[in-house]
């Protein structure tokens, strides 16, 4: 039994070349189609031309410090925004109408206007042009967008230029109107705001005035005044009250004095005695009678006697004196009563007696009453100057006291009012400050808005006179001479590389997947001993013939295939539609353009 050792197969460079040679069929089978396709594409793809307009974003002429533009966004954003507006449905439809693009884009037109618009959108390219600009404020360089380009791609150079032109015009137009619009809107908004604030301010003013009116006297600014007034009023009040006290004392004094003085003068004889007139006698009797009647009852003989005497006297002196005497009696009794009341308590017998006497005398006076009216005045008039004086003083004192009392109450009322004001002051102050603050706020806001409004108005006029940032057409789009794509040489080159790579890759992969025994060396290594013989593939005549036939067939097929591919590419990609307005035959137009389109001529026409 032999040991058959199996060993690993090592690879050498010779093996690689052997692999390539051995798998040349597969490699070629991969390379050739890929190459053919790339050549077909390189030749068959239609030229695409691009026409470009350059638009400069010019800074505003008037320095920003003077007039701050309302348009504050960066150029990039503005351009993007305007792009969106430019590529709106209405605008695109306008362009389509103007250039009659439905007939140019026949395929898309069949699918609807939306497809044509989409073609326009897809063919448009927007690019920013930036530059390093020194920022005047910071002094540092920064990348700023200073311009942008609008390009359009089309298979027809003329169309590319025309459409690019339209788009550029749209950009310029949109920018102008949008800026104008923005400035106008801002001004309008600000003026509206200003109105609102003004109205609010007016309302606050009214409330403030109202409040002041309602709380007059309690306002904070009047506080000091109020304090002063209070102080003064208090002083006055104290003063008055002092006066009142003084006067009351005086009154008491006067009253007591008056009680001791007879209201009637005494008549003196030449000897200096007091002579009693009949009236006088009557009066003294009456006084006596009064005091006695208080002590005794009316049945007492002294009382009876005295009343007989008095009646006799009354007959003499005339009845007129009755009433005056009664009046005097009452008056005297009243005085006595007053003095007694002051001296004693009201339960005191003297006081009680005098009360009885007064009551009686008043009754008698009423009884006499209306019958006699003569001589009342003369009998009632006291004629004692001292008495008169005292009485006058007393009355004066009374009336003064009364006035003072009134004054006192007035002052008290005033004081109370003032104090009420003071107590109200803190809450009033609070409310007042709130109102004032609101008002101040409104006022400052108003000032702010009016300032802004002024700025906005200026900006508006800036825009309307085109002195703000604007778009300027720097380069008008031209009819392109050379196509943008495809880069035919590059396609062929790339295709060649790819196909070779693909071929080799295929060979490598296939080789890797191949687990067969290959070559003498492999077998030797697998077995440990070399094979006894290596027999080559024996080719018979039949084999040779078959091979030849196979080669011919492959060549013919690939040529045919290539030709078919070319025909297909030609018919598919070459534009056959004539230019607008020109009814040239496609045959004359398309090939001419293909030759012009550059790229290698490959003689496959």
């Amino acid at each position: 039994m032999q040991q058959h050792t199996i060993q690993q197969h090592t690879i050498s460079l010779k093996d690689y070349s052997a692999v390539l040679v051995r798998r040349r069929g597969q490699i070629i089978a991969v390379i050739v189609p890929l190459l053919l396709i790339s050549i077909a594409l390189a030749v068959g793809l239609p030229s695409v031309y691009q026409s470009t307009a350059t638009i400069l974003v010019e800074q505003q002429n008037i320095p920003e410090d003077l007039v701050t533009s309302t348009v504050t966004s960066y150029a990039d954003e503005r351009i993007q925004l305007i792009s969106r507006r430019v590529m709106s449905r209405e605008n695109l439809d306008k362009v389509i109408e103007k250039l009659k693009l439905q007939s140019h884009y026949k395929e898309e037109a069949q699918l609807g206007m939306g497809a044509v618009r989409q073609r326009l959108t897809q063919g448009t390219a927007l690019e920013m042009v930036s530059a390093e600009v020194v920022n005047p404020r910071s002094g540092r360089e920064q990348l700023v967008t200073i311009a942008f380009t609008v390009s359009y791609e089309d298979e027809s150079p003329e169309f590319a230029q025309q459409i690019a032109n339209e788009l550029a015009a749209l950009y310029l137009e949109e920018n102008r109107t949008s800026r104008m619009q923005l400035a106008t809107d801002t001004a309008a908004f600000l003026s509206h705001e200003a109105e609102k604030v003004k109205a609010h301010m007016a309302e606050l003013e009214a409330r403030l005035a109202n409040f002041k009116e309602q709380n007059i006297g309690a306002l904070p600014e009047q506080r000091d005044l109020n304090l002063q007034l209070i102080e003064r009023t208090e002083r006055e009040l104290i003063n008055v009250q002092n006066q009142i006290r003084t006067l009351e004392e005086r009154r008491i004094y006067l009253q007591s004095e008056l009680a001791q003085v007879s209201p009637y003068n005494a008549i003196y004889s030449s000897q200096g005695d007091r002579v009693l007139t009949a009236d006088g006698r009557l009066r003294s009797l009456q006084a006596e009678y009064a005091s006695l009647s208080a002590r005794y009852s009316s049945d007492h003989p002294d009382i009876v006697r005295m009343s007989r005497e008095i009646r006799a006297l009354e007959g003499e002196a005339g009845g007129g004196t009755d009433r005056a005497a009664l009046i005097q009696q009452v008056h005297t009794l009243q005085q006595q009563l007053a003095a007694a009341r002051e001296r004693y308590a009201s339960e005191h017998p003297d006081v009680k007696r005098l009360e009885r006497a007064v009551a009686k005398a008043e009754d008698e006076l009423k009884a006499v009453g209306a019958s006699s009216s003569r001589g009342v005045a003369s009998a009632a008039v006291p004629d004692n100057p001292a008495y008169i004086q005292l009485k006058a003083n007393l009355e004066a004192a009374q009336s003064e006291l009364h006035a003072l009392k009134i004054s006192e109450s007035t002052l008290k009322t005033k004081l109370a009012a003032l104090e009420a004001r003071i107590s109200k002051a803190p809450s009033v102050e609070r409310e007042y400050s709130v109102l004032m603050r609101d008002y101040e706020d409104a006022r400052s806001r108003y000032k702010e808005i009016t300032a802004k409004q002024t700025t906005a108005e200026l900006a508006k006029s800036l825009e309307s006179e085109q002195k703000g940032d604007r778009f300027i057409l720097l380069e008008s789009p031209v009819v392109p001479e050379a196509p943008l794509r495809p880069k035919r040489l590059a396609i062929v080159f790339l295709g060649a590389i790819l196909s070779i790579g693909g071929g080799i890759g295929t060979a490598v992969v296939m080789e890797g997947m191949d687990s067969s025994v290959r070559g003498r060396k492999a077998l030797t290594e697998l077995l440990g001993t070399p094979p006894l013989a290596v027999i080559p593939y024996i080719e018979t005549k039949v084999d040779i013939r078959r091979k030849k036939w196979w080669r011919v067939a492959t060549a013919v097929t690939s040529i045919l295939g290539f030709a078919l591919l070319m025909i297909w590419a030609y018919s598919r990609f070459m534009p056959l539609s004539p230019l607008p307005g020109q009814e040239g035959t496609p045959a004359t137009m398309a090939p001419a353009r293909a030759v012009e389109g550059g790229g290698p001529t490959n003689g496959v026409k």
Partner: protein
Amino acid sequence: MERIKKALELARQSRMQDQGTVRTGESSPPRLADRQPIDIDGAKIQVPADVLEYHRIVSGLQDRALMAPYKMLRTQVLQRMQQSQWTTLAVTGPRENVGKTLTAVNLAVSLASSSNHAVFLVELDLRRPSIHTVFGYQPEYGIAEHLLDSIPIEKVAFSPGVERLTVIPGTRALEHSSELLSSPAMQQFVEQLKGRDARRLCIFDLPPVLMSDDVLAFSPLVDALLLVVEDGKTTREDLNRSLELIADLHLIGTVLNKSEDVIKSDYSYQAY
């Protein structure tokens, strides 16, 4: 010295057999040993050159240089067989289409052409016999008939116009080939074919080793095995598996067939 002794011994044995029971008649097939072991009077056919060329038989090839690899093979095989005193060789491969039949035929032709050995080429791929087609010959009877139906061997064997080469073909496809290959009849047949002559070489074309168990069934009856490997097609797994299966046999060597990997210097060495 050894060789002469062995040759004398063999000659003596064959003479003894000849003097032994001579059986004639229809009861049993005529034994090869009864006759002179060198020749079987089979049919002699002429194979046209273009047929040979079409089937890639070396003797018919235009390009003489292609004979060189087979010469190399012949030399190597001969050397080893003589060294180990083998006389029977089985030719097989892992799978179909490796070229084992062609290799067997060409080896047999080479051996017969340029050595003084008598070569017997026996078809043992009984499911798909193909040796006869290589010679463009449609035999009436095949080895199956000889073994099973007792057809005499002369009616089966033929010689394709190469001296000292006798071909024993197959005809119809046989279903239970492995049973036949391990049967006593087969054993007897191989013994007869071998004879006692060391100058007889028997080449047996067997089916692919991975496709059936025929090779294993026949393996006790054969001295050595030649494995044919197809360059670029036989996988390593197949090769390993094949080697495993024939591990108990004497593998005389391998042949890398249909190879692109051919160097002229390989054939400068001619050992003979």
